[in-house]
Protein backbone atom coordinates (compact mmCIF):
# COMPACT_ATOMS: atom_id res chain seq x y z
CA UNK A 1 0.00 0.00 0.00
CA UNK A 2 1.38 3.34 -0.91
CA UNK A 3 1.21 5.84 1.92
CA UNK A 4 0.43 9.45 1.29
CA UNK A 5 3.46 11.63 0.75
CA UNK A 6 4.29 14.81 2.59
CA UNK A 7 3.30 17.75 0.54
CA UNK A 8 2.40 21.24 1.53
CA UNK A 9 -1.23 22.04 0.95
CA UNK A 10 -1.41 24.91 -1.47
CA UNK A 11 -5.15 25.12 -1.83
CA UNK A 12 -6.66 27.73 0.45
CA UNK A 13 -10.28 28.09 1.51
CA UNK A 14 -10.21 31.85 1.38
CA UNK A 15 -9.30 33.90 -1.64
CA UNK A 16 -6.08 35.86 -1.41
CA UNK A 17 -7.86 39.13 -0.71
CA UNK A 18 -9.79 37.62 2.15
CA UNK A 19 -6.58 36.16 3.60
CA UNK A 20 -4.86 39.54 3.46
CA UNK A 21 -7.81 41.17 5.19
CA UNK A 22 -7.77 38.58 7.96
CA UNK A 23 -4.02 38.93 8.41
CA UNK A 24 -4.42 42.70 8.68
CA UNK A 25 -7.14 42.29 11.31
CA UNK A 26 -4.99 39.83 13.28
CA UNK A 27 -2.06 42.25 13.26
CA UNK A 28 -4.29 45.15 14.26
CA UNK A 29 -5.83 43.09 17.04
CA UNK A 30 -2.37 42.16 18.27
CA UNK A 31 -1.54 45.85 18.30
CA UNK A 32 -4.50 46.38 20.62
CA UNK A 33 -7.36 47.25 18.25
CA UNK A 34 -10.41 45.71 19.85
CA UNK A 35 -12.68 46.27 16.84
CA UNK A 36 -10.34 44.22 14.67
CA UNK A 37 -10.60 41.32 17.06
CA UNK A 38 -14.39 41.64 17.06
CA UNK A 39 -14.32 41.52 13.25
CA UNK A 40 -12.29 38.32 13.45
CA UNK A 41 -14.75 36.93 15.97
CA UNK A 42 -17.65 37.76 13.66
CA UNK A 43 -15.82 36.06 10.79
CA UNK A 44 -15.15 32.79 12.61
CA UNK A 45 -17.92 32.66 15.23
CA UNK A 46 -20.23 30.32 13.31
CA UNK A 47 -17.39 28.00 12.26
CA UNK A 48 -16.23 27.57 15.86
CA UNK A 49 -19.83 27.29 17.08
CA UNK A 50 -20.57 24.51 14.57
CA UNK A 51 -17.32 22.77 15.43
CA UNK A 52 -18.32 22.77 19.12
CA UNK A 53 -21.88 21.71 18.29
CA UNK A 54 -20.73 18.69 16.21
CA UNK A 55 -18.77 17.51 19.23
CA UNK A 56 -21.25 18.27 22.02
CA UNK A 57 -24.63 17.98 20.25
CA UNK A 58 -25.87 20.68 22.58
CA UNK A 59 -26.57 24.25 21.55
CA UNK A 60 -25.97 25.82 24.95
CA UNK A 61 -22.70 23.98 25.51
CA UNK A 62 -21.54 24.89 22.00
CA UNK A 63 -22.40 28.54 22.66
CA UNK A 64 -20.47 28.49 25.97
CA UNK A 65 -17.45 26.84 24.40
CA UNK A 66 -17.44 29.34 21.52
CA UNK A 67 -17.53 32.32 23.87
CA UNK A 68 -14.75 30.74 25.91
CA UNK A 69 -12.64 30.12 22.79
CA UNK A 70 -12.78 33.78 21.73
CA UNK A 71 -12.13 35.03 25.25
CA UNK A 72 -9.06 32.77 25.45
CA UNK A 73 -7.98 33.79 21.95
CA UNK A 74 -8.11 37.48 22.87
CA UNK A 75 -6.05 36.89 25.99
CA UNK A 76 -3.44 34.83 24.17
CA UNK A 77 -3.34 36.76 20.91
CA UNK A 78 0.15 38.02 21.70
CA UNK A 79 1.46 34.45 21.59
CA UNK A 80 0.33 33.93 17.98
CA UNK A 81 3.48 34.31 15.92
CA UNK A 82 2.09 33.84 12.40
CA UNK A 83 -1.06 35.80 11.55
CA UNK A 84 -1.63 33.39 8.67
CA UNK A 85 -2.33 30.59 11.17
CA UNK A 86 -5.09 32.43 13.02
CA UNK A 87 -7.90 30.09 11.93
CA UNK A 88 -5.91 26.95 12.76
CA UNK A 89 -4.85 28.45 16.08
CA UNK A 90 -8.48 29.26 16.88
CA UNK A 91 -9.44 25.65 16.12
CA UNK A 92 -6.58 24.46 18.31
CA UNK A 93 -8.04 26.43 21.23
CA UNK A 94 -11.50 25.07 20.39
CA UNK A 95 -10.25 21.46 20.32
CA UNK A 96 -8.70 21.94 23.76
CA UNK A 97 -11.90 23.55 25.10
CA UNK A 98 -14.00 20.65 23.79
CA UNK A 99 -11.59 18.17 25.40
CA UNK A 100 -11.87 20.05 28.70
CA UNK A 101 -15.65 20.02 28.35
CA UNK A 102 -15.77 16.24 27.88
CA UNK A 103 -13.32 15.72 30.73
CA UNK A 104 -15.47 17.84 33.05
CA UNK A 105 -18.60 16.04 31.88
CA UNK A 106 -17.03 12.68 32.65
CA UNK A 107 -16.09 13.91 36.11
CA UNK A 108 -19.56 15.23 36.88
CA UNK A 109 -21.08 11.95 35.68
CA UNK A 110 -19.14 10.15 38.40
CA UNK A 111 -20.92 12.15 41.07
CA UNK A 112 -24.33 12.25 39.43
CA UNK A 113 -27.09 9.70 39.86
CA UNK A 114 -27.82 7.75 36.67
CA UNK A 115 -31.34 9.17 36.44
CA UNK A 116 -30.06 12.74 36.22
CA UNK A 117 -27.50 11.75 33.64
CA UNK A 118 -30.04 10.48 31.12
CA UNK A 119 -30.84 13.95 29.82
CA UNK A 120 -27.22 14.81 29.06
CA UNK A 121 -26.96 12.46 26.11
CA UNK A 122 -30.12 13.71 24.47
CA UNK A 123 -29.68 16.10 21.56
CA UNK A 124 -30.42 19.72 22.26
CA UNK A 125 -34.11 20.49 22.21
CA UNK A 126 -34.01 24.16 23.13
CA UNK A 127 -33.80 26.28 20.07
CA UNK A 128 -35.04 29.74 19.39
CA UNK A 129 -36.34 28.78 15.93
CA UNK A 130 -38.03 25.43 15.81
CA UNK A 131 -36.57 23.36 12.94
CA UNK A 132 -39.75 21.37 12.31
CA UNK A 133 -40.30 17.61 12.59
CA UNK A 134 -38.63 16.70 9.27
CA UNK A 135 -35.51 18.70 10.02
CA UNK A 136 -35.35 17.28 13.54
CA UNK A 137 -35.63 13.75 12.20
CA UNK A 138 -33.00 14.46 9.55
CA UNK A 139 -30.67 15.90 12.15
CA UNK A 140 -31.23 13.02 14.50
CA UNK A 141 -30.60 10.43 11.77
CA UNK A 142 -27.47 12.19 10.58
CA UNK A 143 -26.15 12.31 14.12
CA UNK A 144 -26.93 8.62 14.65
CA UNK A 145 -25.41 7.48 11.36
CA UNK A 146 -22.30 9.64 11.61
CA UNK A 147 -21.74 8.58 15.23
CA UNK A 148 -22.11 4.94 14.19
CA UNK A 149 -19.51 5.41 11.45
CA UNK A 150 -17.12 7.34 13.65
CA UNK A 151 -17.33 4.72 16.37
CA UNK A 152 -15.29 2.57 13.97
CA UNK A 153 -12.50 5.17 13.80
CA UNK A 154 -9.73 5.69 16.30
CA UNK A 155 -9.78 8.86 18.37
CA UNK A 156 -7.23 10.61 16.14
CA UNK A 157 -8.85 9.41 12.93
CA UNK A 158 -12.21 10.68 14.13
CA UNK A 159 -10.80 14.09 15.06
CA UNK A 160 -9.01 14.47 11.74
CA UNK A 161 -12.02 13.23 9.72
CA UNK A 162 -14.25 15.75 11.48
CA UNK A 163 -11.82 18.62 11.03
CA UNK A 164 -11.45 17.78 7.34
CA UNK A 165 -15.01 17.00 6.30
CA UNK A 166 -17.24 18.58 8.94
CA UNK A 167 -15.22 21.74 9.57
CA UNK A 168 -13.62 21.88 6.08
CA UNK A 169 -10.10 22.61 7.30
CA UNK A 170 -7.13 22.17 4.96
CA UNK A 171 -4.34 19.71 5.75
CA UNK A 172 -1.93 22.42 6.89
CA UNK A 173 -4.62 23.91 9.14
CA UNK A 174 -5.38 20.51 10.68
CA UNK A 175 -1.66 19.92 11.18
CA UNK A 176 -1.32 23.27 12.98
CA UNK A 177 -4.46 22.75 15.06
CA UNK A 178 -3.40 19.28 16.20
CA UNK A 179 0.32 20.16 16.29
CA UNK A 180 1.28 17.25 14.09
CA UNK A 181 2.98 16.93 10.72
CA UNK A 182 0.96 17.00 7.53
CA UNK A 183 2.11 13.51 6.60
CA UNK A 184 0.77 12.16 9.92
CA UNK A 185 -2.53 13.89 9.25
CA UNK A 186 -2.72 12.37 5.77
CA UNK A 187 -1.89 8.89 7.06
CA UNK A 188 -4.69 9.03 9.64
CA UNK A 189 -7.11 10.50 7.13
CA UNK A 190 -6.20 7.80 4.62
CA UNK A 191 -7.20 5.14 7.17
CA UNK A 192 -10.40 6.97 7.97
CA UNK A 193 -11.26 7.23 4.28
CA UNK A 194 -10.64 3.51 3.77
CA UNK A 195 -13.17 2.80 6.54
CA UNK A 196 -15.56 5.34 5.05
CA UNK A 197 -15.34 3.68 1.65
CA UNK A 198 -16.44 0.36 3.12
CA UNK A 199 -19.19 1.73 5.38
CA UNK A 200 -22.02 1.04 2.97
CA UNK A 201 -24.74 1.86 5.50
CA UNK A 202 -23.45 5.38 6.09
CA UNK A 203 -22.82 5.95 2.42
CA UNK A 204 -26.29 4.70 1.53
CA UNK A 205 -27.76 7.09 4.07
CA UNK A 206 -25.77 9.98 2.56
CA UNK A 207 -26.87 9.05 -0.95
CA UNK A 208 -30.48 8.66 0.17
CA UNK A 209 -30.50 12.07 1.77
CA UNK A 210 -28.97 13.79 -1.23
CA UNK A 211 -31.49 12.17 -3.61
Amino acid at each position, binding site marked *: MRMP*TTKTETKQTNPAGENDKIQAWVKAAQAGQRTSF*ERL*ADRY*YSAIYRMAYYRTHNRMDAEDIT*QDVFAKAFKGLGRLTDANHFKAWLFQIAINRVRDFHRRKKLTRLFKPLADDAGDTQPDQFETTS*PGPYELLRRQRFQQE*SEKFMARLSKTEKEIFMLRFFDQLQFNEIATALQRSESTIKTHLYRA*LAKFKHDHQFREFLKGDSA
Partner: protein
Amino acid sequence: MTATSNDHLTEDQLLQKLLDPSDLSDNCKAHLAACSSCRIAVDSLHADLHQVHTLALATSPKSVGQFRLPSAHTKSVFSIWAGMPLFPRLVASAIALFLVIGAALLIKPGQENISVYEAGYTVDPDQLLSEIDELVETPFAPEFLLTISATEMDIDEDFMKTIVPIIENDPMSRTWGKKGESLC
Protein backbone atom coordinates in the same frame (compact mmCIF):
# COMPACT_ATOMS: atom_id res chain seq x y z
CA MET B 1 1.60 -0.76 -6.47
CA THR B 2 1.18 0.98 -9.79
CA ALA B 3 -1.55 0.65 -12.36
CA THR B 4 -1.05 0.52 -16.06
CA SER B 5 -3.37 2.55 -18.26
CA ASN B 6 -5.49 -0.57 -18.83
CA ASP B 7 -5.87 -1.63 -15.16
CA HIS B 8 -8.56 -0.09 -13.04
CA LEU B 9 -7.42 2.01 -10.12
CA THR B 10 -6.76 0.14 -6.89
CA GLU B 11 -8.44 1.20 -3.62
CA ASP B 12 -5.19 2.79 -2.56
CA GLN B 13 -5.08 4.88 -5.71
CA LEU B 14 -8.72 5.85 -5.37
CA LEU B 15 -8.12 7.11 -1.86
CA GLN B 16 -4.92 8.78 -2.97
CA LYS B 17 -6.94 10.66 -5.57
CA LEU B 18 -9.21 11.93 -2.82
CA LEU B 19 -6.39 12.86 -0.48
CA ASP B 20 -4.01 14.48 -2.91
CA PRO B 21 -4.57 14.10 -6.67
CA SER B 22 -1.12 15.47 -7.44
CA ASP B 23 0.43 12.36 -5.87
CA LEU B 24 -1.06 10.08 -8.55
CA SER B 25 1.28 8.74 -11.19
CA ASP B 26 0.86 9.80 -14.82
CA ASN B 27 -0.39 6.31 -15.72
CA CYS B 28 -3.15 6.55 -13.14
CA LYS B 29 -4.09 10.01 -14.29
CA ALA B 30 -4.30 8.82 -17.87
CA HIS B 31 -6.40 5.81 -16.88
CA LEU B 32 -8.74 7.96 -14.82
CA ALA B 33 -9.25 10.29 -17.76
CA ALA B 34 -10.14 7.36 -20.00
CA CYS B 35 -11.99 4.97 -17.63
CA SER B 36 -15.53 6.00 -16.81
CA SER B 37 -16.04 3.29 -14.14
CA CYS B 38 -12.99 4.48 -12.17
CA ARG B 39 -14.13 8.07 -12.55
CA ILE B 40 -17.58 7.10 -11.25
CA ALA B 41 -16.00 5.35 -8.24
CA VAL B 42 -13.90 8.41 -7.41
CA ASP B 43 -16.76 10.84 -8.02
CA SER B 44 -19.13 8.73 -5.90
CA LEU B 45 -16.71 8.78 -2.96
CA HIS B 46 -16.09 12.46 -3.46
CA ALA B 47 -19.83 13.20 -3.59
CA ASP B 48 -20.45 11.17 -0.40
CA LEU B 49 -17.73 13.06 1.45
CA HIS B 50 -19.12 16.34 0.19
CA GLN B 51 -22.55 15.23 1.39
CA VAL B 52 -21.08 14.73 4.90
CA HIS B 53 -20.19 18.40 5.01
CA THR B 54 -23.47 19.52 3.43
CA LEU B 55 -25.53 17.53 5.92
CA ALA B 56 -23.41 18.59 8.87
CA LEU B 57 -23.91 22.20 7.86
CA ALA B 58 -27.64 21.78 7.20
CA THR B 59 -28.40 19.91 10.41
CA SER B 60 -26.47 22.14 12.80
CA PRO B 61 -28.48 24.92 14.41
CA LYS B 62 -27.67 28.52 13.63
CA SER B 63 -25.75 30.32 16.32
CA VAL B 64 -27.62 33.24 17.83
CA GLY B 65 -24.76 34.72 19.79
CA GLN B 66 -21.82 36.86 18.90
CA PHE B 67 -18.63 37.63 20.71
CA ARG B 68 -18.10 41.12 22.08
CA LEU B 69 -15.18 42.14 24.20
CA PRO B 70 -16.09 43.74 27.52
CA SER B 71 -15.80 47.52 27.38
CA ALA B 72 -12.44 48.83 28.52
CA HIS B 73 -14.15 51.48 30.69
CA THR B 74 -16.37 49.10 32.62
CA LYS B 75 -13.67 47.85 34.97
CA SER B 76 -15.14 46.91 38.31
CA VAL B 77 -13.78 48.48 41.51
CA PHE B 78 -12.68 45.04 42.62
CA SER B 79 -10.68 44.41 39.43
CA ILE B 80 -8.98 47.81 39.79
CA TRP B 81 -8.21 46.99 43.43
CA ALA B 82 -6.95 43.51 42.54
CA GLY B 83 -4.77 44.94 39.79
CA MET B 84 -2.99 47.37 42.11
CA PRO B 85 0.47 46.48 43.52
CA LEU B 86 0.59 45.18 47.09
CA PHE B 87 2.18 48.19 48.80
CA PRO B 88 -0.37 50.84 47.73
CA ARG B 89 -3.13 48.42 48.68
CA LEU B 90 -1.67 47.99 52.19
CA VAL B 91 -1.27 51.77 52.63
CA ALA B 92 -4.83 52.42 51.44
CA SER B 93 -6.16 49.73 53.79
CA ALA B 94 -4.28 51.24 56.76
CA ILE B 95 -5.61 54.75 56.01
CA ALA B 96 -9.16 53.46 55.68
CA LEU B 97 -8.88 51.57 58.98
CA PHE B 98 -7.45 54.64 60.74
CA LEU B 99 -10.30 56.84 59.46
CA VAL B 100 -12.99 54.37 60.53
CA ILE B 101 -11.54 53.95 64.04
CA GLY B 102 -10.98 57.71 64.41
CA ALA B 103 -14.55 58.50 63.39
CA ALA B 104 -15.89 55.89 65.81
CA LEU B 105 -13.93 57.42 68.69
CA LEU B 106 -14.83 61.04 67.92
CA ILE B 107 -18.56 60.59 67.57
CA LYS B 108 -20.14 60.12 71.04
CA PRO B 109 -23.49 58.39 71.33
CA GLY B 110 -26.42 60.86 71.09
CA GLN B 111 -24.19 63.73 70.02
CA GLU B 112 -25.87 64.02 66.69
CA ASN B 113 -29.29 64.55 68.42
CA ILE B 114 -27.99 67.39 70.59
CA SER B 115 -26.65 69.17 67.62
CA VAL B 116 -30.08 68.98 65.95
CA TYR B 117 -31.79 70.58 68.94
CA GLU B 118 -29.09 73.20 69.24
CA ALA B 119 -29.55 74.16 65.65
CA GLY B 120 -33.33 74.68 65.82
CA TYR B 121 -34.20 75.68 69.37
CA THR B 122 -31.58 78.04 70.78
CA VAL B 123 -33.29 80.03 73.59
CA ASP B 124 -31.85 82.62 75.97
CA PRO B 125 -32.06 81.00 79.49
CA ASP B 126 -32.70 84.33 81.30
CA GLN B 127 -35.62 85.15 79.04
CA LEU B 128 -37.02 81.65 79.59
CA LEU B 129 -36.80 81.99 83.41
CA SER B 130 -38.53 85.39 83.42
CA GLU B 131 -41.36 83.93 81.31
CA ILE B 132 -41.76 81.08 83.82
CA ASP B 133 -41.79 83.51 86.77
CA GLU B 134 -44.48 85.58 85.13
CA LEU B 135 -46.62 82.50 84.57
CA VAL B 136 -46.21 81.46 88.23
CA GLU B 137 -47.08 84.91 89.54
CA THR B 138 -50.13 85.32 87.34
CA PRO B 139 -51.65 81.85 87.12
CA PHE B 140 -54.96 83.21 85.92
CA ALA B 141 -55.54 84.96 82.70
CA PRO B 142 -56.48 88.70 83.05
CA GLU B 143 -59.81 88.00 81.26
CA PHE B 144 -60.70 85.41 83.88
CA LEU B 145 -59.87 87.74 86.79
CA LEU B 146 -61.94 90.51 85.16
CA THR B 147 -64.91 88.14 84.86
CA ILE B 148 -64.81 87.19 88.53
CA SER B 149 -64.06 90.85 89.50
CA ALA B 150 -60.85 89.88 91.21
CA THR B 151 -58.37 92.07 89.43
CA GLU B 152 -57.12 93.60 92.67
CA MET B 153 -57.30 90.38 94.61
CA ASP B 154 -54.19 89.23 96.42
CA ILE B 155 -53.64 85.78 95.16
CA ASP B 156 -51.42 84.10 97.66
CA GLU B 157 -50.94 80.56 98.88
CA ASP B 158 -53.90 80.65 101.26
CA PHE B 159 -56.18 81.82 98.51
CA MET B 160 -54.98 78.98 96.30
CA LYS B 161 -55.68 76.50 99.11
CA THR B 162 -59.20 77.88 99.25
CA ILE B 163 -59.65 77.39 95.56
CA VAL B 164 -57.98 73.96 95.46
CA PRO B 165 -58.14 72.32 98.92
CA ILE B 166 -55.45 69.81 99.81
CA ILE B 167 -56.77 66.28 99.96
CA GLU B 168 -54.84 64.55 102.69
CA ASN B 169 -55.40 60.89 101.79
CA ASP B 170 -55.49 61.28 98.08
CA PRO B 171 -54.18 58.05 96.55
CA MET B 172 -53.23 60.10 93.51
CA SER B 173 -50.97 62.26 95.67
CA ARG B 174 -47.28 61.71 95.30
CA THR B 175 -46.90 61.41 99.07
CA TRP B 176 -49.53 58.66 99.37
CA GLY B 177 -48.20 55.59 101.13
CA LYS B 178 -44.65 56.87 101.30
CA LYS B 179 -42.65 55.46 104.16
CA GLY B 180 -42.33 57.96 107.11
CA GLU B 181 -45.15 60.20 105.88
CA SER B 182 -48.10 60.67 108.12
CA LEU B 183 -51.37 60.24 106.38
CA CYS B 184 -53.55 61.20 109.35
